[in-house]
């Protein structure tokens, strides 16, 4: 069952990323700590969305793109306006 292998690899990958993000917090990288932690969180989110949530098909992707667009507007306008 190759599906099971895919899920297991995804699971191990997620745990490895968790270990990486915790380990990175003990090393002082200046301003890069926050960026690295958020990048790892985004990578985990993509793994979960693609492997566990089967994010395929036009309509689900459209819903995610719409949510992403509004989040960009929300964060973008707030941070520009400061």
């Amino acid at each position, binding site marked *: 069952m190759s599906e099971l292998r895919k*899920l297991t690899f995804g699971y191990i990958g*997620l745990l490895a990323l*968790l270990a990486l993000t915790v380990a990175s917090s003990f090393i002082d990288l200046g301003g890069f700590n926050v960026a690295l932690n958020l990048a790892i969180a985004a990578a985990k989110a993509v793994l979960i969305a693609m492997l566990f949530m089967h994010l395929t098909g036009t309509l689900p992707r459209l*819903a*995610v793109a719409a949510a992403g667009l*509004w989040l960009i507007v929300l964060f973008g306008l707030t941070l520009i306006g400061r």
Partner: protein
Amino acid sequence: MSGTESVAFDTPRRERRADTFAMWVFIGSEAMLFGAIFLVFLVAHIDFGPAFAAASKRLSLPLGTFNTAVLITSSFTMALAHGLALHRRWRATIWALVATAALGVCFLIVKGIEYGKEIAEGLAPLLGLPFRYAGPDPVHAEFFFGLYFAMTSLHALHLIGGIVVIAGMIALWGAASPANRLRRVVAIGLYWHFVDIIWVFMFPVLYLINR
């Protein structure tokens, strides 16, 4: 014998696709809710960085890391439930769902232990509890803990909702047709993974910021 729940769909496959799209739209609206709270935290972090970093060190990193692993494992068992339901291995599907809900309960228990610790240390500025914080800038540290409790309790409420729905699904399992079982597993799975993704962002933001 079409096996659909609603007469609006002629095949179970179509009904499942409509369900999946609706779940993704719902997840998008949930992302707006959590996005706004993350934005408040981000702006406060930019303004009060040192106070937030010092306050963040008072959280329990071991418990937070353990809980993240627990939630990732629960997402894995939920994904297994989906795969098993596709192969119509119903008994195994139920066990995967039970494991998922049990891991969710485990997360809540550990979260409760954390809350208990923080309340005992006087770090919980809620319900009129005393806030005793010896570090620098206690006013903004109090703001950090206020946000911490708001964000994590909102996430915990979502998790409780997921556990209740899984319990209800298992209770109604015998009466459901195979197509409806699969449809429900897919729908609750999408929700569960989304709640996991929220935690995946909350964990570094709250526990790891500038350690």
